[in-house]
């Protein structure tokens, strides 16, 4: 209940950490505050204020839009259009069969071919996607996990065909399989061999494609699954440590591999709180810097810099009064900028219904452009630094991140918790709890449980998948299989299988099958014989 101070009623507020929030903060909340130790200047250890000294005064954050087209031709057209309009970063999304290692003609794939992204069955599809696009002139972001090694190998082969040395390739590949067991479900193999494959890719990129971000550990899906804003960051860091330990075991040095790690973290969502979201990312930067330095002995400054992009989350958006979502996304975007994001991908106002329409994608981009060009929020680095409230929160968030990670370790580590389904269970329960708070009206959602309108909502324009997509893809796949040398495919797959059996780094063994036009599904089926298939634990 509200307390009275003098005449005015005071509305009680509790933070995401469960602590009561005061009406204002002052010097007494930050006793013994040491600027150098806690903050330091932007670009200096522990990087609380940002990993670069000049941030957006030197270069704006990257405004990326995630767009998936159904076929290799339409994707190629789209890419060429974007490049013509001055975009230099391309982003490639794949359909679910490609993400799960199924060919378009495999039984379970049928209903999902070409939906949510491009269908890739063989190297020929990949060559078509990048036809006429000079790979040394662009950076490409690949949203792919379980089949990431195959996709990267295809990118290298396309580059070689263009006469571009792999060393010159730039981009990012998600390559974060552990969160797939928690949230998005595009796993294939059990966790152990999957972690090994993540490590293969990191190790290979470190040696052969040093300018390529071999991994982007993602907290966004974990948040959508029910984690709160601090848990999403803590789990992502905990997952990153699993991969780091795997690569260190192979004899790599921490300063060789830590700089290859970047994160994709959520801003917004159902638990959004402007200041908490910002403080959590400031706290995460400090936590990571100390973790790398003190636990892993990293010395290179780049190892200590917590590099992240942000995704403005669709989970906080509503189906009711959808234009309200533009206002929500704008505020998420501002929080991302105050957090020092390097790149932002903002949710679109109609994504509750389907793949965002062109209008919705453009509006999300315009929100970012307005922030960057019209408002002054990007002029000064870490403008909230020194705020009593934000610094107090940042301390609390950093401590909470450490506490969550410590608990995971003492419970046997995140892999064990994923295998048993414990994490999935806990997060789904949390998601249910938030839902109930919204249903009861305890948590206000404008337009949903407060300030509702009676009139019929306007129907939204949604992106439609071309029904001919699957037929075209199937014909192509058939042609590939008819025109290849079957003996070469089989011998290449045999070599791949023995390399997997020996535990070698698999990336170099992917080139030969791919060149022989082995399909993604055939390669994955070969590996399943060695690695087995993940069995989903019971979680509800």
């Amino acid at each position, binding site marked *: 209940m509200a307390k009275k101070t003098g005449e005015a009623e005071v509305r009680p507020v509790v933070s995401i950490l469960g602590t009561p929030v005061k009406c204002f903060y002052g010097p007494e909340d930050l006793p013994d505050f040491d600027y150098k130790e806690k903050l330091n200047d932007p670009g200096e250890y522990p990087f609380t204020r940002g990993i670069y000294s000049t941030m957006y005064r030197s270069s704006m954050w990257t405004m990326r839009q995630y767009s998936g087209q159904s076929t290799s031709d339409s994707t190629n057209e789209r890419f060429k259009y974007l490049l013509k309009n001055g975009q230099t970063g391309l982003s490639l999304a794949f359909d*679910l069969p490609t993400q799960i290692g199924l060919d378009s003609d495999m039984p379970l794939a049928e209903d*999902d071919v070409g939906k949510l992204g491009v269908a890739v069955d063989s190297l020929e599809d990949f060559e078509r996607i990048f036809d006429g696009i000079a790979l040394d002139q662009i950076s490409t972001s690949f949203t792919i996990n379980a089949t990431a090694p195959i996709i990267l190998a295809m990118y290298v082969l396309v580059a070689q065909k263009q006469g571009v040395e792999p060393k010159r390739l730039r981009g990012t590949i998600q390559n974060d399989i552990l969160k797939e067991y928690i*949230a*998005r479900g595009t796993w294939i193999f059990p966790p152990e061999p999957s972690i090994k494959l993540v490590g293969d890719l990191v190790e290979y990129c470190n040696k052969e494609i040093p300018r390529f971000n071999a991994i982007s550990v993602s907290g966004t899906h974990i948040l959508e699954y029910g984690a709160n804003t601090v848990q999403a960051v803590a789990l992502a860091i905990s997952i990153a440590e699993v991969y780091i330990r795997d690569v260190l075991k192979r004899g790599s040095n921490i300063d060789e591999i830590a700089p290859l790690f970047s994160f994709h973290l959520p801003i917004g969502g159902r638990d959004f709180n402007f200041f908490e979201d910002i403080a959590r990312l400031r706290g995460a930067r400090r936590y990571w810097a100390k973790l790398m330095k003190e636990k892993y002995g990293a010395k290179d400054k780049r190892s200590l810099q917590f590099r992240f992009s942000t995704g403005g989350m669709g989970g906080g958006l509503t189906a009711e009064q959808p234009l309200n979502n533009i206002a929500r996304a704008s505020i998420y975007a501002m929080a991302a900028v105050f957090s020092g994001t390097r790149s932002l991908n903002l949710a679109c106002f109609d994504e*509750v*219904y*389907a793949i965002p329409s062109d209008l919705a994608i453009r509006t999300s981009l315009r929100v970012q452009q307005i922030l960057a060009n019209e408002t002054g929020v990007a002029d000064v680095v870490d403008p909230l630094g020194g705020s009593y409230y934000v610094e107090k929160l940042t301390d609390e968030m950093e401590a909470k991140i450490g506490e969550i990670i410590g608990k995971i370790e003492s419970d046997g580590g995140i892999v064990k918790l994923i295998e048993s389904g414990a994490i999935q269970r806990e997060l789904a329960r949390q998601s*249910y709890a938030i839902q109930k708070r919204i249903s009861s009206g305890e948590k206000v959602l404008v337009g949903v449980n407060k300030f509702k309108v009676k009139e019929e909502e306007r*129907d939204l324009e*949604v992106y439609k998948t071309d029904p001919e997509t699957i037929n075209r893809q199937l014909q192509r796949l058939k042609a590939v299989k008819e025109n290849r040398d079957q003996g070469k495919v089989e011998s290449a797959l045999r070599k791949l299988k023995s390399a997997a059996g020996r535990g070698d780094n698999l990336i170099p063994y992917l080139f030969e099958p791919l060149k022989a036009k082995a399909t993604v599904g055939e390669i994955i089926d070969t590996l399943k014989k060695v690695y087995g298939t993940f069995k989903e634990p019971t979680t509800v």
Partner: protein
Amino acid sequence: MGTNKTIRVLIAKIGLDGHDVGAKVLIFWLRDEGMEVIYTGLRQTVEQVVEVALQEAVDVIGVSILSGSHLSIAQKLINRIRERELDGVLVLFGGTIPKDDIRALKEMGIHGVFPSHSKLEEISAFIKQNVRHGEEEGERNR
């Protein structure tokens, strides 16, 4: 009518879509509403789901799809349900479903469609109101 038989629900993920937190939230809710709920797990085929529905004698099949493949999967499910003579079962679809497709799904014979962000109360109320049909036709021995 008038019986207090526990409603049995099968919540299914058909196809490759791995987004299942919505399905799980609904499962928790329906259980709190007193229903018995079985969950199939990810990546099921229409055939597998219909067999489980038969074996477990469920009153309701609820399918969650967020990948955009609801129309083709719904048609296959309806065909399979007819083949296996499971007609009394109430069939619901939920997930990322545009308005035009809600109409299409209902024309196909899906009884209730609940796009993402539907209220949990609405879904359980719909089940309670409509589940009786199957019971009346199926077991009329009271």
